[in-house]
């Protein structure tokens, strides 16, 4: 970074007076210091890119609330955190919306979860692609013949949590096998 680009306050003053070049440099440098901040909080790089663009647009919309007299970075970070919180709130709300309710799986929980028409060996390749905990639960229940309660005792989970994890794994497997 050059000395000029580091002086965000001066760049913003020029930008507010209509200097397009200064504004472009300011936004580029802002994107540069915000990217690692977002990357530490969001896993997917495409989401980081989308959020970064949203933040730059927000900075553009709110630029009249910055006068160039106080430090620039806290102002930019405040907007970034605000948009990040919005993003995370929407993200988790979406997850919650798609989550399987316990009442929804109650009927399945009544059924013996160790019985299945498909053998473990025939789909072991697919099971290995599951999240490690789900894969381990299915392996113990279907290959090693443990009951859900025994699996729960062995891996320190509640029995109901083991059944829910198994149910979720079945759903994923069913989707894969139906393709």
């Amino acid at each position, binding site marked *: 970074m050059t000395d000029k680009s580091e002086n965000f306050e001066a760049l913003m003053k020029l930008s507010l007076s209509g200097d397009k070049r200064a504004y472009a440099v300011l936004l*580029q440098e802002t*994107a540069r210091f915000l990217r690692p901040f977002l990357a530490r909080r969001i896993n997917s790089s495409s989401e980081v890119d989308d959020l970064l663009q949203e933040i*730059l647009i927000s900075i553009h919309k709110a630029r009249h609330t*910055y006068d160039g007299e106080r430090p620039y970075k*806290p*102002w930019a970070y405040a907007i970034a955190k605000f948009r990040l919180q919005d993003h995370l709130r929407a993200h988790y709300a979406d997850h919650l919306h798609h989550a399987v309710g316990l009442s929804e799986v109650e009927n399945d929980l009544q059924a013996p979860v160790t019985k299945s028409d498909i053998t473990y060996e025939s789909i072991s390749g697919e099971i290995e692609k599951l999240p490690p905990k789900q894969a381990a639960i299915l392996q113990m229940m279907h290959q090693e013949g443990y009951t859900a309660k025994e699996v729960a005792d062995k891996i320190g989970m509640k029995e109901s949590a083991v059944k829910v994890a198994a149910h979720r794994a079945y759903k994923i497997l069913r989707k894969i096998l139906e393709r």
Partner: protein
Amino acid sequence: MVNIEELVESLARDAAPVKPAPHPFMLSLRWVAGAVVYLVASLWISGLRPDLMQKLDEPWFVAELASLVLIFIATSLSAAVLVFPDLHQMRKAAWAPVGLFAIFVIVLFFSWRADVPPAPLPMHSFECTVSITLFALLPAAWTFFSMRQFASTHSRWAGSVALLFAFSVGALWLLLHELNNSIIHVIQWHYLPMLGIGLVGWWLGRRFLKW
């Protein structure tokens, strides 16, 4: 979506000269001045309480009036700070109303202790809350409209403080207008409803100050 470089280029093309927002002190001063004009005009029309000069000799009445005026000023300053994404880097100013509300509660407590024998309760009750709320509608709408032109990252908090500011204008008006000496009544129907108003502002802020 486009890539970052394209977006930066497109935003930079829109970089026309922009007038920076006024300092929070100036913004707060505008709101206070507007509210004072509204208050004076309303008192001109509705009239001052007939015993006002006599009441101004009572220390706890003066303390109540002074602390309410300070809340009025502190909430306007806090609201003005809260419309800036970074709180104009004056976080303490945003919290100013908390200390003043604490002082106000202490003043009311001592006023209540000093009210011996207790002044008779007036015949009316919730009408006071309704009057204050109706009186506060105009300053509330004006403040919210003004705040929407900025970029608050604390929309709930800002909404809450903005409504408390408007409500304090209404509370000042009734304190100076109504012939009423009952501290119990004043606490119950003038000031306790402020808690509810704060919650309404919390909800309205989320709806109307989001950008």
